[in-house]
């Protein structure tokens, strides 16, 4: 009868087990790229969805304004075109920076993606801070210009006062909803996901004991 040293034989297989990694190294790189690509694709789809939705809303509002006043429609069109251009420019800059990221090392690429997407969110929020009050004021001004009323100085002051009194909370609410809620739901949660993965990878093998096979 033959002897069978269970633990000894199990330990002998260890070298083969360690060599196995070499055969799958390439697959890991593909997987790392796919994972990041999934999150980035989600961001891309959300941006496209956002654009389509904006076009629809803007078109509906534009149609209403067009019926009201062609001059206002032109002013509105110029504003909207400018806003779309800036949004698209911001997004294309994001895509360009992301494409440049070296995807070979997952942790480094994660750090880069997080930095780039956070920068995109910061710039987009800053854009909202600037555009929203400007659009409000210009819209108000255009509406007043369209009216045939000639204002006295006192009436101008009253109109300005009401614009500010009404506008400040409305603009604040719109900025808050966009920057605090909308961006958080649309984009920041993906950054949080990426940050969580990065933190796990960083902490993962901190003070791990090395694997030992057998006793």
């Amino acid at each position: 009868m033959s002897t069978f040293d269970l633990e000894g034989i199990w330990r002998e297989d260890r070298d083969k087990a360690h060599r196995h990694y070499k055969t799958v190294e390439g697959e890991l790189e593909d997987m790392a790229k796919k994972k990041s690509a999934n999150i980035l694709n989600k961001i891309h789809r959300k941006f496209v969805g956002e654009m389509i939705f904006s076009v629809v809303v803007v078109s509906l509002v534009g149609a209403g304004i067009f019926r009201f006043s062609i001059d206002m429609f032109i002013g509105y069109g110029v504003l909207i075109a400018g806003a779309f251009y800036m949004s698209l420019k911001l997004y294309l800059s994001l895509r360009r920076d992301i494409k440049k990221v070296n995807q070979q090392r997952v942790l480094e690429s994660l750090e880069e993606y997080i930095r780039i997407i956070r920068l995109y969110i910061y710039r987009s929020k800053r854009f909202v801070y600037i555009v929203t009050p400007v659009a409000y004021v210009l819209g108000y001004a255009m509406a007043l210009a369209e009216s045939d009323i000639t204002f006295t100085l006192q009436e101008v002051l009253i109109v300005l006062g009401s614009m500010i009194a009404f506008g400040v909370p409305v603009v604040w609410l719109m900025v808050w909803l966009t920057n605090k809620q909308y961006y958080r739901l649309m984009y920041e949660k993906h950054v949080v996901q990426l940050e969580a993965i990065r933190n796990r990878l960083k902490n993962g093998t901190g003070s791990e004991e090395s694997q030992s096979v057998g006793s």
Partner: protein
Amino acid sequence: MVDFKTIIKEHDPILYKIGRIYSHDSAGFDDLYQEMLIQVYQSLHSFSGNARLSTWIYRVALNTALTHQRNEKKHAKVVTDERIEERECEEEPQKIAEQGEQKIEMLYKSIRKLQPEERGLIMLQLEGKKYDEIAAVIGISTSHVGVKLLRARKKLENFLREDGYEHI
């Protein structure tokens, strides 16, 4: 700097061995290995750091293997117990030359005869894990580990004796 590749490089032997004991042929091994890799990669964000990473990887990989087994049974796959290296052997085990490679194959073959949960227990014991870590991986109490391990070990030794080995 640590990244996923480093994590897998350090822990690949775990996936390799689990793949071998829960699959019967090269194709099955490749399928299972891929699934485990994907599960570990996709689940990394859920690793809370309150257990050792190796323990967590064992848990994820074993759960994946057990699910894979259940799915294989569901689809009633007919598998033959081929060697992963596709080395053919037609002689009875006790007549095979006492080469290390043959013994490893015999060990894997015998482990595969155990129940799915028992395979995991035996593997962890052979890996030198203590009862509390085995319990954490399998998800049973430490006292249960002892009882189940004893049973599984006896079964394994019986399988090996049937194949002509003694002094286990």
